[in-house]
Structure formats: C-alpha cells, structure tokens
C-alpha cells in the first residue's frame, strides 16, 4: 500500500518538476494514441454508418466480423503488423518497423473496429423512419447521413472514448512494433512495463498514475462535448 502512495507522490513530483523525459513520454503517448484514435474515428464512423444504413448481401456477416474485431487481441495485431513491415515483409521497403508511425498504424487497427462497431449500433438504434423523414424534407444522401450522425452524438462520442481508451492503455502491440526506444518510441505504457521489469516499482506506479491522469483529462473534455445539452 505504501508503495502506491510513494508512486502517487513520485508522479506529482515528476509532473510538477516537468521532468523532461517523463514529459516527452507523455506527449508521445498522447500524439500516437490521439492520431490513431483520429484515424479510427474517420474510418470507423464512415464504414459503421455505411453498413448501418445500407442493405446488402452478407450484411449480417459483415456486422459479425466488425463486432468480433472489437475484441481483437492487441498483441495479435502487433504481431501481424510486425510481420508485415519488417525487412522481409511485403511492406519492408517502407522501413517503418520500430517507429512511432508503426505504433500509430497498429493502434489504429486496434481502435477502428471498436469505433466501427459502436457507430454501427448507434445508427441502428435510431428510429427506423428517421432516415426517410430526413430525405423527405429534401436532404441529399450526404446531408441525411450528417444529420443522423449528429443525432447519434452521444453514442458516437462514447465510441471515440472507447477507441481512445483501448489504445492509450495498450502495451503489447506498441512494444512489438515500436521497440520501446528511449526518446523515440517509448510511451507511458511501454515505459511502465520496462520499469516494472527492472524492479523500479515506484517509478512504474508513477508512470501509471500519469497515464491515468492523461486518460482522464482527455475523456473529461470529450464527455463535456458529449453531454452538452441542447435545451435552454
């Protein structure tokens, strides 16, 4: 127990003294996971909405696959991405193994099905005639889709938070494709595991606390947007 307290104290100490290595790691975590979440937002929402609104052969199967994707083990994703981008892999010529770019790719792959699945459910949850009602008021298809997305703001933002939560705390894929290289691809989660492995528990807990603070701050902002009331 006192180890945890020590850890919390150390966390604040590191933050307040603006320890450059810790600040760097924190900023990198935010950049990588933020970018990955952003990518997953675009791909996830657009495909999720498209699947929800259109009837096609194999729709049920597609939805099952998306829902399964929500539970993709991150380590498995990391392994596949590694095999794709290492020197002997099909994308080896890009030379992106052990770079933050590879981490963004892996995290985007992990987050996208989550955002996709929840967006899909959010749109399907709207009243079935709403789509026709909007079209009948003279909307183009694109205008209609935008109105439906705005109507689903609550669950869609939950989807973004779920996607972000999934990747900011992700470790397996990040360490595999990033390499945990000091000052370059080391993020809060990979640093925490490394310090734990070295036995520096207080530092590990401190890093964990900082990760929680970071996640909370982002989610607080997103929740404000989500819960914004329309009435006055």
């Amino acid at each position, binding site marked *: 127990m006192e180890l945890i307290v020590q850890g919390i104290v150390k966390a604040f100490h590191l933050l307040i003294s603006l320890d450059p290595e810790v600040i760097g790691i924190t900023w990198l975590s935010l950049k990588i996971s933020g970018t990955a979440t952003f990518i997953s937002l675009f791909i996830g929402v657009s495909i999720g909405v498209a699947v929800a609104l259109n009837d096609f052969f194999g729709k049920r199967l597609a939805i099952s696959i998306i829902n399964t994707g929500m539970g993709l083990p991150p380590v498995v994703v990391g392994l596949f991405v590694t095999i794709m981008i290492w020197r002997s892999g099909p994308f080896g010529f890009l030379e992106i193994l052990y770079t933050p770019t590879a981490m963004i790719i892996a995290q985007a792959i992990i987050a996208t099905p989550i955002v996709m699945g929840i967006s899909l459910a959010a749109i399907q949850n709207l009243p079935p*005639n709403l789509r026709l009602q909007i079209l009948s008021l003279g909307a183009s298809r694109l*205008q209609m889709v935008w109105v439906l997305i705005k109507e689903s703001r609550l669950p869609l933002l939950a989807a973004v938070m779920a996607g972000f939560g999934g990747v900011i705390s992700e470790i397996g894929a990040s360490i595999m494709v990033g390499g945990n290289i000091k000052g370059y691809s080391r993020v809060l989660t990979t640093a925490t595991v490394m310090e734990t492995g070295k036995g520096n528990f207080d530092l590990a807990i401190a890093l964990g606390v900082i990760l929680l603070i970071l996640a909370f701050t982002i989610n607080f902002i997103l929740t404000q947007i989500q819960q914004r009331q329309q009435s006055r």
Partner: protein
Amino acid sequence: MKQSPLLSVENLVVKRGKFTVLNVNELKVFPGRTLALIGPNGAGKSTLLLTLAGLLPIESGRLYFQARQVNSSSDLAMLRRNVAVVFQEPLLLNMTVEKNIAVGLKFRNLSSAEIKKSVDEALAYFGIEHLAKRAAKTLSGGESKRVSLARAFAIKPKIIFLDEAFNSLDPPTREAIIDDLQNILEKTKITAVLALHDREETLRLAQDVVVMSEGKIIQQGATAQVFQQPVNEYIASFVGTEVILEGVVKTSKEGLMEIAVNGQVIEAVGEFKEGQKVCCCLRPENITVSKTIPGKISARNVFEARVIKAVRQAYFYKLTLDCGFTLSAYITLPSFDELNIREGSMLVVSFKATAVHVIKR
C-alpha cells in the same frame, strides 16, 4: 377535374425482396385537392404513399411528377425536394423546436432571414410560437405532432403526404389538430395525400379517396360517391351503413340546425356555424316509412319519396328512395307487404333530427 394531375402513376409495381407489395394500374393526384388512401392494415397505403413521395424504389411502371417521368435517382431527389412527409411518429431531432422546423429549410440554399421568416410562419400556422425555444424532446404528443406538421409545411411543398399522422393522439388533441390542418389546407391550397384509418377524418379532409386492398386499388373516386356506393364489404363496413348527404348549414339556433341538401332542408342537432359545409349521416334503420304523412309526430324531418329500388335482404328489405336526395331505409318483410310497396311507389319518409349525425366537411 379538368386540370392535369400533379402526380400520377401507371402500372406501378413495388417489391420488397421477392414479394410484390404494390400493383397499381392507375392513380392521379390533382393539384389543390386532398386525396385519402384507405384500406385495411397491410393493404399497402403506406407503401403507396412513400412511393409517391419518392422514398421507395420502383420495380416497374412509371411515375410522373408535373407531367415529367421520374426516372433516375436525381429525378427522385428532385421529387423529394418538392414534397414533404409527416409520419405517425413525430421523428423530431434532438434540438429546439425552432431548429427542428428549420431542418428542411437548411437543406436548401436559403438565407437565414428567409429561413427565419418561413419558420415563424409555420409556428404561427400551428399555434406553437410559444414553443419555439423549447427542446423538442420535452414536448407532449400533441405538441410534437404540431411541430412535425409545421416542419413539413415550412418548406412549402407542392404535395404534402401524411402517413396515418393522427393515430397516436387522444381524441381532443386529434380534433384540434385536424381542425388546424383543415384550415391550412383550405388556405394554402396545398395538394395533400393522406393515408387514413378513420371514416370521419376521411370525410372531413378528403375530396377524393382511393380504397386499397392487398396492394391493389379496388375503388377510387370522389369521397361522397365512393362512400355512397361502396363496391365491396370492406368499404361498406369502413363507410358504415349510413347514408351520407353533402350539404351546407343554413341556420343554426339553440342547438338545432337547418341544413340545405340538394334543394331540400334537413333539420339536425348540432352547433355548426352558418355557411359551414357538412355531411349528414343517417342510418337506414332510423328511417321510418309510411304511406301517408303522419300527424303530429316528433320527427322534424318528413319528406315525400319515390321508391327507386327494393332489394330483399334475408330478414328485411332495403329500399332506395328519392326525396330530392337519395336515402336508404330498412323495413321488415311484413311491413313491406302491409304497405304494399313496390318500385315506383310514392311513400313518406320521416326521421328525427337527433338521428342525423353531422360532420364538418
């Protein structure tokens, strides 16, 4: 009906998956008039309505809007921009009433001044100015329905479609909203197509009616005419076994009205205003037939009539009588014989003012 139709279909077939849900040979919607689609559940009223509004794809057949065929998806989009649909559920968005009403207007490139003007107009039409800034999700059923209607009227559509729009309202609310709608339709002369369930609403609102069953049209024409001469039992039971006479209120005093029908005057109870167009509905079983004019009798309505037709129906006779307007009456077999009735006989019919059910038209 000399005007050309605003919307018409030929040999329209609509499918859902493998099933043919709609098979309509011919239908015309004329400008400035209200058309009702009636029929049992599953007859295809909503499907037809949504297809006419450009919201459902056509399997085969042709749809014409303003005499031009609606072919491609851009034609359909153009059709949709000229119409508005109100569904049974209000389907309001999570925003204020004002913003909801402006939704349709925002899809078109209008200035915010023009939008505000149309929104204010629509709010006034339905008497909901006081709700302008309320959140749509906090409204009652009747208020939501008004907002939904206002939203549709705000875009000034050429045709407005209402799909069983009054079903989920309680009677007083329904009455008030139908009143407002009637006024607006009269004032703006907007063409309307309504899918309806209720006989009274049909009589009140629609000049023309189309009766559907199993995806096909089984009868269409002017409302009064279809109601008076239903071609099958469903329509007959929808209509009721009443006689329906169109007329205008001449005088109205102390709960008793004189209604002019085809040159004759019928007295009925009620308190409509003079000049109000109405339908008088009478049940044949409430009509008494006699050979001579009865002496002092409480029935206010006594007319001479000639028997046009006499049809035997199991336990009674159904007589069709002409007293300046056409009536049906039922009399028992013994009475038929005792009065020596046959086609061409001159009789006297009488019925009470309280037996006349008057509906606004």
